[in-house]
């Protein structure tokens, strides 16, 4: 095993670090349909954390409307979903987030993604098309695959709200539970 591969194998992503970044971003509302990638490391601890207000929704596109409504009072929200839910919600994202320029912040679990590969090189078709779709829609995105990526979350959320634009964080490996 060469050093690069060994380093990737040892990479860790801690849910506690992501939660701290979300809090630092001023996000109170978490809007979610459960995603197995982020279930143990993020959604369960978020559900127990009194600093967050978790709204469990039935279908992911509901989150787009709720986050838009909240933004009218400067209330920040993070949408925590699986990539399948993102794909299912594309029309709502197209209209509300992109055409209406609303600050819609999405954290998207890449179910089946192999952390040692770039998402565009994934063996999973649905994962492979995520970044090209985001690019085609003009939505800023960031791969969060290890703790070293986490410091990019707060500036991206701040920018989304400052400029009233959407942003997507792609969670490339299962975050470790706190």
């Amino acid at each position, binding site marked *: 095993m060469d050093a690069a591969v060994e380093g990737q194998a040892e990479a860790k992503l801690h849910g506690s670090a992501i939660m701290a970044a979300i809090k630092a971003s001023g996000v109170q509302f978490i809007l979610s349909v459960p995603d197995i990638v982020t279930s143990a490391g993020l959604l369960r601890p978020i559900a127990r954390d009194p600093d967050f207000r978790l709204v469990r929704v039935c279908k992911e596109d509901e989150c787009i*409307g709720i986050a838009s*409504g909240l933004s*009218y009072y400067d209330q920040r929200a993070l949408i925590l979903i699986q990539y399948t839910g993102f794909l299912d919600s594309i029309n709502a994202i197209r209209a509300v987030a992109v055409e209406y320029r609303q600050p819609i912040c999405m954290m998207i679990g890449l179910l089946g993604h192999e952390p040692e590969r770039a998402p565009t090189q994934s063996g999973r078709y649905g994962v492979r098309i995520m970044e090209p779709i985001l690019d085609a829609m003009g939505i800023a995105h960031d791969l969060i695959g290890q703790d070293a990526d986490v410091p990019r979350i707060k500036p991206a959320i701040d920018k989304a709200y400052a400029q009233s634009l959407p942003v997507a964080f792609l969670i490339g490996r299962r975050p470790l539970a706190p």
Partner: protein
Amino acid sequence: MMKRDECFRILARHVTDEIVVASYSSAAEWNEVNPRVRNYFSVGAMGLASSHGLGLALGRPTQRVLVLDGDGSLLMNLGSLVTIGAAAPRNLVHFVCHNGTYEANGSHPLPNPDVDFSSIAKAAGYAQCHQFSELAAFEQRIGQVLGQDGPVFATLKVERSKPLTYDYPTLYAPEKRDALRAMLRAG
């Protein structure tokens, strides 16, 4: 059965500082009856009016929010009834204008034009559910309905009042969103 515009004119007499979220035919007709800054039409996709309304209600519990949904729209987001029932915003009143058709898309019938929305909302957890099909009863009770602790749901059994003009660029104009945002952020 009520004419939707007559129904909205009665409703407008009771609306003060509420945010009114409306979709498609309801938005076009409400905008004619009661154009105002606190109208919110940029719901973006069929079915999302109730979700926008939930966000507006959760964001400021002292601000009352009315949703004027369409029946075809609500069928595309029935799960939002369960989400709203669970989130239980006391400041949300959710109306559905039930005419049994996809009016904005050619007036084709719903899969089941007689679907009972109020019963579904009750089962989903709304605190208060109503149904109105006569203007006199609606006029008599609307004040009470608007004052109830929510989430409140009310089916309005309506028929088309007239052929509508769907001026979407005007309804969804960015200036409308900016004006509402500025008003709400000012308090």
